[in-house]
């Protein structure tokens, strides 16, 4: 481009952008931002700064204006999202509801910064695989994890005891009792192994086993409630999604098409004020 055509382009651009601001036309403002970002290969978040000469107040004013319209759109577009006036997006209105993310009005997306927020979609995907057994599978996985050391010690103890004389093993029956405790850790410990006069190593192992198992039982109970509550939250979220969409995938599509759908909605409203 020549200097003249370049300046002409800039002049036209700012005239348009100014007109869009005067008209309070979100659609035209976004068009201006998108064009600028495309032309200059800027990340879209930086376009307002470029256009507004990096003035913080002006950028904030533009952002606030765009945010109001974007919030209204998201509230209507995804009805089970509760969007606060400052742009935080909550999943539902139930007890223990989670924050899903934060609206980014310039990029027209929902940003997820925290691990908790980023975990929501994967949890929904996992839940949708097997809604009826989700909690059970989670509990099983947690049980395996919590009882890993118990398992290891149990194997050691088993090996140790197998090297001992046959009659002793048969006499006390503790071996079987031990197996039983291992198989069903939620059962009360009615049959702890209690062999008389065993070598020191076995005794030590057994003490260690009992200690580790008590701790594991305690941890299991504590984590069980957490998992139950967490699964209940995911179930609410899953039910909310399925009341609007046919699947979690469709919900993900809606999220990834948020910007396109928003722009289409603004365009449909035409050049109307505040559109």
């Amino acid at each position: 481009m020549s200097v003249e055509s370049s300046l002409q382009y800039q002049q036209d651009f700012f005239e348009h952008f100014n007109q869009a601001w005067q008209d309070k036309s979100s659609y035209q403002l976004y068009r201006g931002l998108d064009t600028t970002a495309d032309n200059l290969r800027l990340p879209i978040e930086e376009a307002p700064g470029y256009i507004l000469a990096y003035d913080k107040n002006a950028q904030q004013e533009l952002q606030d204006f765009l945010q109001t319209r974007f919030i209204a759109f998201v509230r209507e577009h995804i009805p089970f999202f509760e969007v606060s006036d400052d742009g935080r997006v909550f999943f539902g209105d139930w007890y223990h509801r989670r924050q899903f993310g934060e609206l980014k009005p310039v990029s027209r997306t929902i940003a997820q910064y925290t691990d908790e927020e980023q975990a929501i979609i994967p949890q929904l995907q996992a839940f949708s695989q097997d809604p009826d057994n989700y909690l059970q599978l989670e509990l099983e996985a947690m049980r395996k994890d919590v009882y890993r050391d118990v398992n290891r010690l149990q194997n050691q103890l088993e090996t140790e005891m197998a090297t001992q004389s046959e009659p002793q093993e048969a006499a006390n029956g503790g071996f079987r009792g031990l197996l039983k405790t291992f198989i069903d850790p939620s059962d009360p410990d009615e049959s702890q192994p209690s062999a008389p006069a065993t070598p020191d190593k076995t005794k030590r192992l057994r003490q260690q086993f009992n200690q580790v198992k008590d701790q594991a039982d305690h941890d299991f109970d504590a984590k069980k409630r957490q998992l139950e509550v967490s699964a209940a939250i995911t179930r609410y979220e899953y039910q909310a999604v399925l009341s609007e969409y046919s699947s979690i995938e469709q919900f993900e599509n809606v999220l990834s098409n948020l910007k396109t759908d928003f722009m289409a909605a603004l365009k449909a409203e035409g050049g109307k004020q505040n559109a």
Partner: protein
Amino acid sequence: MLNLSDTKVKSIVASDLSPLDARNQVSAQYTQLAKNFANDPEWQTNQPAATSRLLSYTDLLAAKLMQAFAADNTIADNFLANVWPETVANDGTHSAIGFNLNRDGSNQTMFTISNPLDAEASLVANNLPTLLQVTAKEEADLGYSEQELTALSNMIKALYTANYTFKQLDDTVLQPVDQLTFKTKYDNNVTISSHAHVVEAGNIELQVALDAHDVVTGYHVFDDAGHDWMDLGSEDVGATDFTWESTTIPEELVGNDLELQVSVRSINNAPALDELFVIASSNAILMRQLAGDGRYELALPNKQSLTVTVHPETDTVTLHYPESTVQIYELNQLYPFLGEWLKSVSPKKPAFN
């Protein structure tokens, strides 16, 4: 013995009274009479006379309640025909009306009004359907036919209009959901703590922040060896903090870390509500947290909302239901998760009935 010449007694006997009016009028009459005798030196120590007097008025009230039941067309006549009130007075201040059901000549006491003439009267279940029975996996025999249960349930509703109420969740499921208040089996305490290093003997102050509604239930001040020094100072519970202060820290504690551990019942720690959340979610019923602290709402499919309020002061929870006469038994038939939850959070009892 009743004075049948007394105009008030005559009026009570002759009028059709609601359960509430029956209770109020008979109690008022009896209370006045008892007061007169208590102030009379000739009579005040005469226990047998006082007991007999109380029994007469308890009898009168029982008869008036039976009359009110008969006038109540929600209580089936053929059921009521087999109900008879058994009155007792143990002394001049304690009496009771037991409601018996005659079954082929033998009696089953269903429930009792304890001290019916007293402002502190209460209902006590003797043989009424319990939570454990209605939530049992295999359908338990409740001891009554479906029709009998309806009549019995309405009889208790009639007594609730006279403010005769059960005091325990364990009593029966024939009590209203609304205003049901009970302790849960959980320990709702959480421990909050703070440390201070003792650099010199003498003064020290330890403090922890409290949330609104936190109720302090106890505290300790431990040294490194785990000895409790709480007696060495005094506590001050403020609106937003708890402070322990001592001016007599001995030389031997210098170099120790002192830890203040304060046990509080917090509105934010309610395992019973998490339990409800889990159960509600698995029944596809939405549970919301309401504005104001410690209040939760379940949006039932019948468009009514069941709300639960947590009270850290008394360590209890209270249920609210818009239709105040609906009993646990009735709501549990519609929504069995209610009984399931109540059973899972109510304190374990060694036996029932």
